């Protein structure tokens, strides 16, 4: 589903190279985890895939179902089925969460040439999905992420994911700032979306999230590349020994 080949990325404003040849292949139905120390380029990879400005791709490609993502506007990537759950979801005062969700869902449907949801259809759907994530009516009414706790923000990201039904989901440190209960709730939300036609790329520092969201493949990223890939046991190895041993071994 997602094919990344030899991806090189530098910052637009300064001459700093962040990704140095990332190769990654994620198939439909799979869950891949990317782990790695701070500054290894994990978040940059997620931003570049979603189309955030400020980065320059100097080499390589990233395809979603054969379509070159890197040429597309962020909204076109979203309509094509890509979703990024943000590490720091953005607060948007003055825009109701519900309005935002409906605008997003219908903008994507429109871009794909599908019929937009009526107010009634949307409401029914959002209530059902919100209930599973323990998001109450009050939270749906409030402005997007304004005054939300860390856990509420992350649950709201998962709600957006559930509503938008993307095929390729990227979770950028979704576990950061979550307590045990919130992590369980968020993970359950993600697991409910696991499906043969959908793939996940889970970026995290810690193994604990992967106890809840079980990956098929674990990658270790360091200095802008994927230096090792393996099964779930690789995450446990990181948990026990830290990154230092692993990285020394690679060198």
């Amino acid at each position, binding site marked *: 589903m997602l094919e990344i080949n030899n991806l090189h990325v530098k910052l637009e404003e300064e001459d700093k190279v962040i990704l140095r040849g990332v190769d990654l292949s994620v198939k439909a139905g799979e869950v891949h985890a990317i782990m790695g120390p701070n500054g290894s380029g994990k978040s940059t990879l997620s931003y570049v895939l979603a*189309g955030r400005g400020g980065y320059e791709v100097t080499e390589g490609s990233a395809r979603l179902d054969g379509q070159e993502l890197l040429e597309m506007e962020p909204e076109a990537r979203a309509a094509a089925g890509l979703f990024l759950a943000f590490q720091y979801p953005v607060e948007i005062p003055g825009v109701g969460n519900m309005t935002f969700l409906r605008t997003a869902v219908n903008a994507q449907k429109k871009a794909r040439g599908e019929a937009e949801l009526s107010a009634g259809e949307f409401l029914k759907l959002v209530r059902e999905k919100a209930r599973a994530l323990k998001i109450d009516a009050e939270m749906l009414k409030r402005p997007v992420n304004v005054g939300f706790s860390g856990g509420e923000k992350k649950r709201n990201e998962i709600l957006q994911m559930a509503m938008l039904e993307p095929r390729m989901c990227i979770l950028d440190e979704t576990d950061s700032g979550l307590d045990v209960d919130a992590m369980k709730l968020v993970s359950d939300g993600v697991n409910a979306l696991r499906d043969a036609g959908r793939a996940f790329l889970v970026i995290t520092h810690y193994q604990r999230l992967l106890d809840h969201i079980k990956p098929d493949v674990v990658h270790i990223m360091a200095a802008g590349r994927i230096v090792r890939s393996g099964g779930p046991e690789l995450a446990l190895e990181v948990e026990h020994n830290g990154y230092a041993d692993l990285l020394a071994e690679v060198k």
Partner: protein
Amino acid sequence: MALAEAKLDALSGRIAGLSFAAKGWLGVARRTALDRLGAMGLPGRRDEYWRYTDPATLIAPEAPPAVLFDAGDEPPVFDTLDRVKIVFVDGEFDARASDDPRLAGVEIERLTEAGGRDSHWAQGLYGMLEARGQTPVQRPLAALNSAFATDGLLIRVTGRAKKPISLIYRRLSETSDAILHHCIKLDPGAELTLLENGPAAARFTKVMEVEVAEGARFHHIRSQGRDHQRRAATHIFARLGTRSLFKSFTLTANGRMTRNECVIELAGEAGVAHVAGAAVGDGDFHHDDTVFVTHAAPACESRQVFKKVLKNGATGVFQGKILVTSAAQKTDGYQISQSLLLDDDSQFLAKPELEIYADDVKCSHGSTSGAIDETSLFYLQSRGLPKRMAQSLLVLAFLAEAIGEIEDEGIADDIRSRLESWLHRHDH
């Protein structure tokens, strides 16, 4: 003395073509206003409160011509609200287009009809709050208005008005120069919502004096017309009694030149005064909010919330002051002025001021200018919103705090949809 002479020359040029009606109680009020005006002359660029706004077109003998605006099929704002409509066309009252002004709890008279009498309740208000508002900052255009207003309304509110009074200012002329003066008096416990909309004239000079007695509530929402070319100098002078409430919101979308002055005196304990504005301008747009709030009694609350969205070289000005006298302990004052600059050509000039003589007060103020937040924009786009839609949403989000000052949700929705259509029209 050259400066004073220039100001007086400008004054004689400006008033040469205006007629002065000297009859009745109004004649007396006009004469004292003329005396005030004569002592001040007209504003000049060197006056402290006119540094950011050139008064030239507001004081010129003739109104600079302004081409009419074609709103297409977009209905006027407030169109669907149940209200009592009173229509002025280029500053002249239009009886045919207006509703029957009878409304329980409210007496409405025209200035030209009531002014010739020997006495009237408005004697204690007309020009009085304007005169009080001349210190410490002179407002010559307001004095000019009191002296030469051609018409206006005298509204006395004795109870709770069941529906809003809606003043509609149409414009059919490219050269009209309208001067209107309204007086509104709310008796103790009374309540009124006043709506105003429309461009009014090629040049519009307006004064509204509002006396809000103990426990009374006054809501004011206006939308200043979509014309690109019109010019306006408006003034609100309000005095608030004990536990009264005054809330004023203004939407300004377009307008070559707008100066909105608002002078509020919190004269009774525990009064609440909120004044807010949302302005959106594209290109040849100059918009100035000049606000002065005086806390003269204890435990009052005031809020000033002004937001401007500027593009293609538009200019925004905010001059806002909170003055807390020594009597006004437990004051709660808040002031925010912010601009969203959509390009590098636009500018926002802000002069926030606090002057406090009481020791137990809570006052905060802030002023910022910035561009659209790239992270927010990316967030919305990453959810599938096209860039322009995302930008519009963020502009509305930026203005939300100001619009939030409108209590009536239906009216707030109307203002929001007006903004959305402006954003749609100016989406380039």
